[in-house]
């Protein structure tokens, strides 16, 4: 039965915000039992993974502002966390994460999926999110223009399907996206 989403992109905050910024519109697989609390265990795990990784590497975070999306992406750290059975999905999953400043973008994959492809997809989607939602700035586009995330996911990760896009396919999709975002 369609239960909890097997794929979602979530943004979670590493700062002191007490809200868990689990933006529902970022799910590209629909939920039939939208119980947000079910997803918290995996997000907590990812959050601690990112924190521990940053602590261990001892790197100093470079502040970036609007317009420096590519720099922010280059400086981003990444990794993958295993989510065991029952955490919270019935089977095992892998949570790939990309930490940009104080946000971690997470992509949860099933065991049969291609991790290398997922890595590239996550980077690509993150770049688009940062650019189109102006996330390096102080605005609230991420809340008020959440349809952009839907459309982004719809093109690059339709219904959660990872796509083997070469640069031409990507260009074609990005052109459509640019047209949409210009509205």
């Amino acid at each position: 039965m369609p239960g909890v989403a097997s794929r979602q992109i979530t943004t979670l905050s590493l700062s002191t915000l007490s809200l868990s910024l689990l933006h529902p519109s970022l799910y590209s697989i629909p939920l039939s039992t939208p119980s947000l609390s079910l997803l918290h265990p995996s997000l907590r795990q990812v959050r601690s993974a990112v924190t521990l990784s940053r602590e261990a590497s001892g790197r100093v975070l470079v502040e970036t502002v609007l317009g420096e999306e590519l720099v922010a992406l280059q400086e981003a750290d990444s990794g993958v966390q295993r989510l065991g059975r029952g955490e919270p999905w019935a089977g095992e999953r892998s949570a790939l994460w990309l930490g940009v400043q104080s946000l971690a973008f997470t992509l949860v994959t099933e065991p049969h999926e291609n991790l290398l492809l997922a890595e590239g997809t996550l980077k690509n989607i993150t770049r688009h999110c940062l650019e189109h939602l102006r996330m390096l700035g102080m605005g609230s586009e991420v809340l008020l223009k959440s349809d952009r995330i839907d459309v982004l996911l719809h093109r690059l990760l339709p219904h959660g399907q990872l796509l083997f896009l070469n640069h031409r396919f990507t260009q074609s999709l990005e052109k459509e996206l640019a047209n949409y975002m210009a509205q």
Partner: protein
Amino acid sequence: MYSAGTESLIKQAREIGEEELQKFYCRITKQLMGKEHGHDVIDSLQRLHLIMASTKYTRRLPVELHQRLLSLCVSSSVEQLTVLTSAVLRETLPPSGPGQIYTLHDHSPLPSHTAALMLSQAGSKEDLSALSSLLLRSLEGRPAGILSHLHTLPLLNTIITYCPESLTEDHVTLLSKRLVDWLRYASVQQGGVASSGGFFTGPRIRQPGPVVELDGCVCGDFFTVLCVSQAFSDDQWMNLYSFSLLRHWLITYHNVTDGNNSTDADDRSEVDGSVVSMVSATSSSSRLLPPKERLREKSFQYCQRLIEQSDRKALKRTDTELQKACLVEAVRILDGVCVEDAGCVYRAFPCVKSLFGRLNSDLSCSRVLLPIAQFYLNHGETAAVDSECVWRCVFGVLPAECFNDPYLAHETLSFIRANQLQLHSSVPLYTHYFPSLLKFLAWDSPGLVSDYVDVLPSLVTAGTAVELLHSLLDLPCLTAALTLQLRSACFPVSEPGGRGLSSLEAFRSPAHRGLFLFLLRGEAGSGDTMDRLSVLHDLLMEAADWSRVIQSAQSVPVLLHVYFNTVTTVSDERLLAQLVLVLLERSSLLLNIPKYTAEIHRVFSHHLLKLCKLHPSLVVDQSRELLEFAGTTTNIHSKEDLYTHVVWVLGEYLSVSFDSRCSVDLVTSCFEALEAVLFEITSSGSPSPRVVTSLLSALAKLASRSHDLIPRVSLFLSKLRSGAVSWCGSEEDVVAVVTRGEELWSLLKLPSVALSVLTPPSLATSPRWHRDANATLPPRLRTLTGLTDTR
């Protein structure tokens, strides 16, 4: 990022008042009634979505608004409206009553966003079957709005993830045929109309040329995802979507496992191989195959083509990354196909083998080597190929060179976890590479410790046990060494002015080269540990407060528990005796990280007890070393926990009933050693009461076995009774010590009683009162009386 403004927006949306909300609903409904939907409608919908999404419970929309949104979602041609309405409607799920379920009308083609909504609210297999039938019907009809069904395959992929049974046999057959068409027979001409150029092109439209490969050469064979073109035709898009779901499709419907060891693979291949192997050898006759087998054959060809295409040098960097991803997918699909039909192994192996030869020296392609290793593991025996170079690469070279690649670490560990049994039986050298494999853990302990808890038992063998124990204890040192190795590579020249790390200097100096080389070795077998371990620990002292080293130290106790629990199953007594020695020796030879030493001692104490309980004769065997340890008073201060356990173990198990080699002399010499320690600590300084009481108990136990010693103990105990406990700290400690002294003194007054209490026969320590005929009589009688007595 995420300013206070964002936070307050969410708060506002959550706390919106009911009245205001109803007014808002009315306003939107009015707006949506109109024909034109401008920016204000979009704005309202976005706000509505924010309100619905921020609420932690599911809100219900007024019926009219709900209906209006649904009809917009289904019929609107403006994508933004479809997206927003479907997002809002998704927030109203799960439906609370029957009236709220969105019914599937015959909307073909079903817009992708609407289909997503249908999928969200599917609650049963029937719903999914209905949706999949609709989707497949739209595929058959090929309606005018062809683009809208481009998401049919991703949708179907989702459906089969949740419920593979929602597609019937006919559906599967139909889709297999279509997949073959799209994968193998997509057009090789550039799709779409090329831009009509400028001034000089006339009404004649330029002919689009053929598609090209990633390096610019004209494409010489059928279209794949690694072909590029100015614009793509529909069937080329379907080629992309088909390949993207191919592996999952094959796994779901072709009884193909994930490529991991399947116990019935042999049986199946007997049956399939005999029927199909003739046909699969000659691909030209594949038209005669049934659809499923035909799909398998075409997948095989597609993957072979991808492997060949990946050899080309792509002009763009993103395409190079895609080539690697395609290689991984292609090898995994080939693996799966060969598991299903063993006859394909002979065709696939040369291809995979040459791929390995091409890639094994290129570290940037390290991730591709894992599926190749899986292929070798599954089919190496069938093809009678020597796989040693593969294992050396995957277990030896890659972890040593790429220990800081989190993805490689994750995938290698997943590979090992999934194939543990088979590795154990088919790859005997696997345990040999444990020093290399530990490097992943040393670098990223928090992320990988749970994987290693699963994998470590397979690395513990009689041959590697002692070396592995030393390596685990020195895991923080390994972490420090790897950090230094990386730093040394990044900054090859020493920093001027002596600001550099002293440990980095030590790492580079030839005098200590040998120490670090041993620590960073890739294979086991060159010695259990190094001689100058304390020198190494001194050199790495400043590493003790590096975060990575501390994280690594925190994972060691857990792994030691796993280690000790496993080692007892694979060792004989001789090996266990060696381990006890290692325990004692290493208790003072650990990298000085705060709390690390204390934690390790705790683990050691726990397992020393367990080992000795399992094999009590170990104590007599190693009595000399244990006595030496117990006789050294400095151990009391630095390792109190471990010390008390050693003393306890000596008292408990140094007895003739556990090992016939235990002579009276041995008991006496042990007694004397412990007595000396007791006198020493009570006459000078303030020992901990725990140490004192454990020494007293041990002495009493030993005395009960050799009655000449009783007077000596009793003398000391009577002194305690009279209150000569000036060395004791607090009142409670005095009470504890004196009470214990009292008990032991009274026991020892009756030597035979003391013997049975302090050295009980094993029968008494593992009571089975309910089985003993004599002991159970009273309880039985009582039970019967209770049942039968009617009073």
